[in-house]
């Protein structure tokens, strides 16, 4: 099912950029226990920081809404679309938080700034993880998205 048809029927991936919509649909396509495994896959797939940030952790912004330490940073290219790149740092002992970061990295990295800013704030509650992960924990992911959007907004309006 494409993002467009889902948007028309108002499903959980409605109004999301294609990569993020696909992730949401992937989560809904599997059972609840399998959703945890999928989240773990995203956790494992989170790219490591490039050297320029790995050596300068102070450049990254902490996300206190998460129960585990995570830091994030956005870059916005000077191209016409103002392409956004995302960088995350979270320890291996925090796989849930890493998983959230992995979803945002795969779903948002490389998008134009305007599309990143348009992502609805409730996207984290659309993954179908409320029962498997709990709404309280999902608030951490909402906190990450909010900080990404704020950083992008500050950069593009500066």
């Amino acid at each position, binding site marked *: 099912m494409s993002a467009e048809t889902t948007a028309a029927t108002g499903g959980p991936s409605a109004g999301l950029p294609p990569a993020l919509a696909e992730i949401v649909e992937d989560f809904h396509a599997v059972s609840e226990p399998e959703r*945890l*495994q999928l*989240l*773990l896959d995203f*956790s494992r797939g989170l790219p490591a920081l490039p050297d320029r940030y790995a050596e300068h952790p102070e450049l990254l912004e*902490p996300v*206190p*809404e*998460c*129960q*585990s*330490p995570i830091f994030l940073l956005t870059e916005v290219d000077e191209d016409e679309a103002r392409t956004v790149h995302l960088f995350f740092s979270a320890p*291996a*002992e*925090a*796989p*849930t*938080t890493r*998983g959230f970061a992995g979803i945002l990295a795969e779903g948002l990295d490389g998008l134009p700034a305007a599309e990143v800013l348009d992502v609805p704030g409730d996207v984290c509650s659309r993954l179908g993880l409320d*029962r*498997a*992960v*709990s709404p*309280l*924990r999902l*608030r*951490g992911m909402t*906190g990450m998205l909010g900080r990404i959007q704020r950083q992008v907004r500050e950069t593009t309006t500066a």
Partner: protein
Amino acid sequence: MTVITDPSPELAEYAHPERLVTTQWLADNLGAPGLVVVESDEDVLLYETGHVPGAVKVDWHTDLNDPVTRDYVDGAAFADLMSRKGISRDSTIVVYGDKSNWWAAYALWVFTLFGHQDVRLLDGGRAAWLAEDREVTTDVPAPERTEYPVVERQDEAIRAFVPDVLAHLGQGPLVDVRSPEEYTGERTHMPAYPEEGALRGGHIPTAVSVPWARAAAEDGRFKGRAELEKIYRDEKGITEGDDVIAYCRIGERSSHTWFVLKHLLGHDQVRNYDGSWTEWGNAVRVPIATGTEPGEAPARRS
């Protein structure tokens, strides 16, 4: 069927050494008939990344809390959970987890609400097991379903509610195990933790501040009995026969302290106020003290 108590000399000094096991004991007893190992973590995915061979997962949020009411699951849901995990009423349960066993202690406390007799903690938790490079696996066991009986929770003995705490003020020790900043009222949540929405900051009047981590050694294991007595008895004046209530923010860190007071120091009457600051800091017209002093018990309303 219960499994033999860990005879390790380092545990013998505690009031109830049968409530703790060492990593070596657990390694030696994995697979023993009647033993079920339970992992209970803050991070809901940590178990999936690798766990003690044969261990089953119990999540504090999705398994132990009622999804609607702010309360624990009822007897039927608990019986179903235990049956699915292959636990019988007479099983020996060893719980371990991340964060120095916060959630493991919480699970142990909830299991105790249901009167499960033999439930123990792995001293040092998940971190100690991993630090010693002991075996881990991602294989999830599929235990044969048991018939755990439906037992109604007995909250009175070890769980306190707001009216209990109000009645307790001035009558016995109250222990606030949160960070110093939460105690004084500077902040309403743990440093670097999510804001969970308490409208007021401070502590319950008369509560003494003993951050939970003071009971833990550098490696996450419990401190020795003499060190624990120095903190809770000599420094804070909690003596034998006292009726004690501990609280934190949502009841998990205070489960750790509850375990210390109840099982390691042997106080008979210890209750965990699990509503803790997320309830007290939002409740209307309950007394609150701010700053570093415990504060006075308020005059009783007639």
